[in-house]
């Protein structure tokens, strides 16, 4: 008799627990939007610069890279990219007392693809600096990598890797 009672109580408790369960509301899938114009808009402060000797890399010579953060006083450099409605508008580069590595200090900017930016062009009076955007995953953590290529007779000989944080 005791055994039957225990079994019934167990079944009752289990039923109560099952009945208390109710489905949670499932949230809609929200895609990650990094890589679009809005994700790179804002004021970025320089953190480091790596100078790569692409000619040495191709020929497998020694001395392929050099950290030039201190030489360029890159921690003083601020890049501001302004966007409006998902479209790039103006930019400013505040070099402070640091060398003017970006040559241009203000103007407009354009991208190759507003949804998934690959290249950024800083433009001022016919002068253009083309920069390639690094990994999108960095943007999610408020970091940005921009690369600038320098060529001689159409061949890349130097590449700068500019790292920023927001």
């Amino acid at each position, binding site marked *: 008799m005791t055994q039957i009672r225990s079994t019934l109580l167990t079944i009752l408790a289990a039923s109560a627990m099952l009945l208390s369960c109710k489905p949670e509301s499932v949230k809609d899938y929200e895609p990650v939007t990094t890589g679009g114009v809005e994700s790179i808009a804002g004021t970025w402060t320089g953190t480091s610069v790596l100078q790569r000797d692409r000619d*040495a890399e191709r*020929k497998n010579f020694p001395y392929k890279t050099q950290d030039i953060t201190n030489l360029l006083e890159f921690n003083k450099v601020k890049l501001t990219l302004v966007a409006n409605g998902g479209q790039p508008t103006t930019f400013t580069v505040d070099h402070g007392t640091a*060398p003017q590595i970006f040559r241009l200090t203000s103007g407009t900017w354009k991208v190759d693809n507003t949804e998934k930016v690959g290249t950024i062009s800083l433009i001022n009076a016919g002068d253009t600096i083309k920069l390639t955007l690094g990994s999108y995953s960095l943007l999610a953590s408020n970091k940005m990598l921009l690369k600038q290529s320098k060529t001689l007779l159409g061949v890349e000989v*130097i590449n700068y890797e500019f790292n920023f944080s927001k």
Partner: protein
Amino acid sequence: MSRMKNVLSLLMLLVAAPCYVFSQTSGAIVTRIPSSFTAEDQVKIIVDVSNVPNLAGKEPLYIWTWNPGDPAPGNGSWDNSNEGRKMVKEGPNKWSWTFTPTQYYGKTPAEITQISFLVKAKNGNGDLKTDDIHLPVAPLVYVPTAFRTFPKVVGQGEAITFFLDQSLATDITTQRMNPTGATISLFSDAGAQVDAAKNVTLTNLGPGVYSGAFFPSKLFNIPAGVTIGKMRVVFKGKIKDANGNDVDAESAFEYGFDPLK
């Protein structure tokens, strides 16, 4: 007396004639882009013949090359250059030739250690040519040198780091001096000094190894439109004389700039 004068005039003419012929074909200014190249690099050679009396104002001009060999299908004949050897006009009296040595000469890199050529009119008769021009070709393997830069190809818009390794120096002064600083001078394409020489602090990276760094447009006042052709780095320091006393010493190196874009 008159006969004596004639003999003297003849002698003077004989002495002067070779000089005259020489001066009519000399004076070419040669620019290489990049300033140092291997047999597998594309190179652009620009020859300014403004100061070559026999070629100034003549056009078109042609390359005539023979070392490391004749390029296919050949230079043509002296009085009728092959059209394939025609140079590109870059401006008044400035002519260029762009090529990759291994492809141009059909030779292996090991066979190309120097390029020899001259610039001529299509019909070179009457010495319508420059003197012979010889350019060294850098080896494909890395060769350590007492002075080097990072990056190897530098320009006026780039961050430049330079290094001195005294163990690789070929002169006693550079080997033995105790560098305490360096001065840098920039020179335009035309050879004129741009701004005054500037001092740069050296960092001792190890025994006999020093480095310095600068950003040209920050350190120097480079007027708009001026293209820098080369820099001269002078390492300054002390060296012991025969009596063991410290005396001033200098060691200088020149390095070409390239027009990077």
